[in-house]
């Protein structure tokens, strides 16, 4: 790998894979790529070699807006003592999958 050809010149893309129809896309990792088309190909070659998916989304990592870890207390602590928000008080019918 010579200096002018390292993939660090390429922007980072986050990869999301849908494992099968009906399920949501899940974040699986990231790839370097020159553009979106190459990012799809790299995601296919890196993350779907073992039949992991039927659909791929990629998004530039720079375009993702993240919450500030310093604000974690304010954002997430207030939910901790409100267990009544969990739907565990309901019986889930057997026919409902993937809940």
């Amino acid at each position, binding site marked *: *790998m010579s200096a002018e*050809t*390292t*993939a660090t010149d*390429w922007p980072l893309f986050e990869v999301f894979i849908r494992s099968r129809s009906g399920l949501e896309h899940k974040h699986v990792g990231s*790839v*370097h*790529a*020159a553009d979106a*088309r*190459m990012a799809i*190909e*790299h995601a*296919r*070659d*890196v993350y779907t*070699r073992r039949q992991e998916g039927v659909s791929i989304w990629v998004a530039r990592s720079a375009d993702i807006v993240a919450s500030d870890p310093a604000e974690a207390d304010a954002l997430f602590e207030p939910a901790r003592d409100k267990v009544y928000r969990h739907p565990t008080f309901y019986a889930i019918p057997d026919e409902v999958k993937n809940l």
Partner: protein
Amino acid sequence: MSAAAPGSGPAPGERALRAALFRYVLRLGDTSLVLGQRLGEWIGHAPALEEDLALANLALDLIGQARLLLTYAGEIEAEGRDEDALAYLRDAPEFLNLTLAEQPNGDFAHTIVRQWLLDAWQLEVYEALSASADTRLAAIAAKAQKETRYHYRFSSGWLIRLGDGTAESRGRTQQALDSLWRFTEELFSADEVDERVIAAGIAPAPGPAAERWRQQTDRDLRAATLPRPSAQPHPWYGKRGVHTEHLGHLLAEMQHLQRTYPGVHW
């Protein structure tokens, strides 16, 4: 087969067709095997981790195709040779791959140009073969066709990026094109083996496929802003067993283990 009583063996025409089919299937299988082995040489050396995996994926598809084709060739021959015997226990003059497939990797542009020329060729061959009168070959081709579509997407995408890229990437790609172009005449040339399987409805006539290949590669070269090489390609005879010196070195590495420890398993 040769021990059959007079009159009970296959008719001479049938025997000749089987012999031609054996060689035709070997040509396809050997081309995939040798190209797959070449791509495998990139593992650990590609310009980026993602490309390393991409090239390895292509290599594994090609070796998978070779396994199916060599297994079938061994059954046609009916002399007890399986895929491993054909892959590991033949010498260079018995390999019938296209000469282009055995050319060394060179730089990344060189590998991409070789891949793109052969992907465009395989696309035509497998598409036509998926409607072959030989149902076994048709099934193998139908599977390989899907793989090849991705290979072509990958290699043509890179050809266009490199050709229409920086001065350096363009220069290297043009150089690769000029150096590999001479091997393209062999892709669609037909000899007596081809003629026989074409006549039996097993293989496609080369004319229309060659024309589509030319149009497709022209489109890609325009998109890559690269001029088509003007030099006339030479006849090469890899598919008749006459190879460049590169194949022997490739086989020495590929066959080393089986030749040193015959029948070894792990």
